[in-house]
């Protein structure tokens, strides 16, 4: 299955819809270009399985390789700490969205307004609404979702892809962005 329809059938996007990530190179380029990205890791990342790993494992590799500041939502912070990642900023997802939308917020690292929000692991409808908030009210921020379902309100999103395709894409993103292979 590969489709750029919203995963939840009725969650139709508006006139402005996400571009589909057709190749991992697209995501790599987007992430590589960002000056002040944040990675928002939703609670589901601790339970979503990709092969013999969890989504959170891939996301932490991405965060570490690119030194991307992490916002932990839900109660995923415990899983991050169990994996040795101690520097996440813990916020409810909607609060994170509100702050990202504020051009005066200098982000978890206080380096400047967030120009890219990488989002994964939230419940689908929650990500949908959060991305909608950012689409409309955070013109300074692009958004990319690394979940395997199409999110029309992101700037970039995968289509609805299989677990196998998802794994291949994520491995390509976390390895090639580092300029080499990265163990997950």
């Amino acid at each position, binding site marked *: 299955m590969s489709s750029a329809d919203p995963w*939840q059938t009725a969650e139709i996007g508006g006139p402005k819809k996400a571009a589909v990530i057709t190749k991992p190179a697209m995501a790599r380029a987007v992430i590589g270009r960002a000056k002040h990205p944040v990675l928002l890791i939703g609670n589901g990342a601790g339970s979503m399985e990709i092969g013999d790993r969890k989504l959170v494992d891939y996301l932490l590799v991405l965060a570490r390789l690119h030194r991307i500041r992490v916002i932990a939502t839900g109660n995923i912070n415990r899983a991050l700490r169990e994996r040795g990642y101690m520097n996440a900023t813990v916020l409810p997802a*909607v609060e994170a969205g*509100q*702050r990202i939308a504020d051009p005066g917020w200098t982000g978890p690292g206080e380096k400047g307004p967030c120009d890219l929000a990488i989002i994964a692991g939230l*419940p689908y409808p929650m990500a949908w609404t959060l991305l909608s*908030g950012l689409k409309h009210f955070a013109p300074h921020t692009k958004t990319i979702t690394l979940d395997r379902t199409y999110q029309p309100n992101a700037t970039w999103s995968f289509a609805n892809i299989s677990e196998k395709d998802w794994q291949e894409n994520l491995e390509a993103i976390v390895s090639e962005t580092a300029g080499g292979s990265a163990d997950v």
Partner: protein
Amino acid sequence: MLLVTEKKVSLSIKELDAGFGRIRDLSVSIGKLSTGDWAETKGPTPYPTLATLREWDHTLLSRYQPFYMPFCDLCCLCTYGKCDLTGTKKGACGISMPAQQARIVLMAACIGAATHTSHARELVTYAIRRSGRDCEIDPGGNAIGVEAPVIRLVCGEKPQTLADLETVLDYCESQITALLAATHTGQEGNYLDFESKVLHAGMIDQVGMEAADLAQISALGYPKADPDAPLAALGMGTVETDKPVILVIGHNVPPAVAIIDYLARENLTDQVEVTGICCTSVDATRYSPRAKIVGPMSWQLRYIRSGIPDVIVVDEQCVRTDAFDEAAAVGTPFIATSDKNCMGLADRTRDPADAIVADLTSGRAKGALILEPEKVGEVAVRVARAVMPARRKSATAISPEIIREKASECKECRLCQRACPNDLAIPRGMKAAAEGNLSLLSGLYDACVGCGRCEHACVHGIPVHSLIMGAAAEKIKNEKFVIRTGRGAIQDIEIRNVGGPIVLGEIPGVVAFVGCSNFANGGKEIAEMSVEFARRRYIVCTSGCAAMSIGMYRDEEGKTPFEQFPGSFAAGGIVNVGSCVANAHIAGATIKIASIFARRNLRGNYAEIADYVHNRVGAVGVAWGAMSQKAAAIASGFWRLGIPVVVGPHGTKYRRMLLGRADRDEDWYVHDQRTGENVYAGPAPEHLFVAAETKEEAMVLVAKLCMRPNDTTRGRAMKLTHYIDLYQRHQGALPEDIPRYIRTPADIPVTLKGEITRILAQSDWKEQPVPDPTLLGRNRAKERQP
């Protein structure tokens, strides 16, 4: 001018020359709300209109700013449209996206407030017909002095009889009409003014709810503020299917009361089961604890399809709009009883009961609209008794063989999963079921919200929902629980006992679990949260479908939360106030703390009391499965009192949060009434409306949102202990924002003194005085100086 209505006569004479002299500006009103011997001074805002409390609203909204998450990018409310409002685009009428979102929120709040107020009107009219206009409002006998805290606060009136409530509802109806008018194209255009009106709608909603519950408590003899209100049966497994079974669905109890009364008159009480879904069943158990609650609104499809009910009686609100079709599909006679919910049925109100019974029993008519509760009572009972024997003979449960057969038709296209609000892995369950393993399909039952969208999505016509229910048949059979029937109001003595500990922070908080059953992960989560907070000695309140979900959970000893914890408004209690409209008693309890404990005047004194509640009463609402517009209105009422509300993940679909910015110190100053100084009081409470992603995150938020500027050091230390403990357990670390909540070293929990002292030393923390807090400029001590 002489104005005569059903409820009052008003005579006003501008100028009259008569033989006995001249009369000018004479006004006589008979039937108007009487205030008796109420000596309390009238406050500044009795019967507030749309802009009366705008300043208070803007005070709140400047601190808790809306964060909009549009659920639709377009406006399609007029023929200019559709208009694309993406980003900074404006509609043809000039409306912006923030204003449009706030407008939609206002519409939702108006729908909710209108629904409760209309329901209140039904109940007051019914109660007057049953008990007379002079029937005294009596929510708790001598145990209740402040009988109507919301009405006193908002209207500045002290209602004494049922007739007095009519005047109050006149006011509500006028306000809702004006609020709805504000959403018309070319009216309000500023998002903050829309939001202020949302808060007004919420306040009106609370007035309507209070009127509704006072009327039914007074006229129907419900438990009156009784902490030991009896327990009632809860769950599909409690239904005795060897008897005729009547199902009532909805919120307006008179038809259910009439059924119970008819059974009693005919000495049939033991011979017929009266079961219910949603708030009608809650109120039926308040009238007679022999009635049984099947479950929250999400149980409709599964229970109707089970074929167990022999007659279905629906009234209003939260009734599945296809309930009649579903009933007809399993051959269950159906009676609609509300002019707001006629279901396309022929009006048989004026027909003789015998004729209606004959038609429904024979199948000549599959349903009937009967707008007379007493007639509904007779017809429902007679039909149930007549059709039951044949229905039991023909009833067939869905067998494992049929489940396997149907499941094998599944092509795993996943359209069912994509239609499911909770993204349940239905195709995986179908595949396993086709191979004879029903456990995966059965496992979906716990998180299924019973919407049935999966079936409508299936292009192969597989009855997905029915298969899940069939696979979970054993679980359903074992749904045998108890719930404490709704007690209604909180006693004055209870308020006296806990008012001080709450305001000083020594009872860590009041947590109200309310709302619908649109849970992302099943109802067990709300039960677990309520138990967690009751064990921590918070006061836990609940109502409606949330109370049912709390009851559907047993501890290791087999006890439900209502058996584990007392029903008193005290630390460690789980207080079921009743149905949706009984939510007014929870808001009322916070208002009564200001009145009874702090001796503040309530009468038409909204802003001062809301300021008191916001700064001093550590109350939080949790609407974990909120679905409806009524839930939106209820939440809005709590917001205007400054009480935060937490919703579950689906709550983001309400499309706007009200979030504070803890990182902006300047937002968290209060006026200290003792000194007249502005004092940093920390982000307490941090948000007014926030969605949590998980149960664990919600619990941490609740503990944090219970903090208030007025907490004593001992109280703050206790609240921090709970917050930090929950945070550590669920996030695996100490919270980073601890310094924001420590005002003096005495606030530090003893067990964490060393660790927190080190944290404070490493931050730029400065000691702050504990203020006598207010957000109202006019309460500043300096301004009080002569």
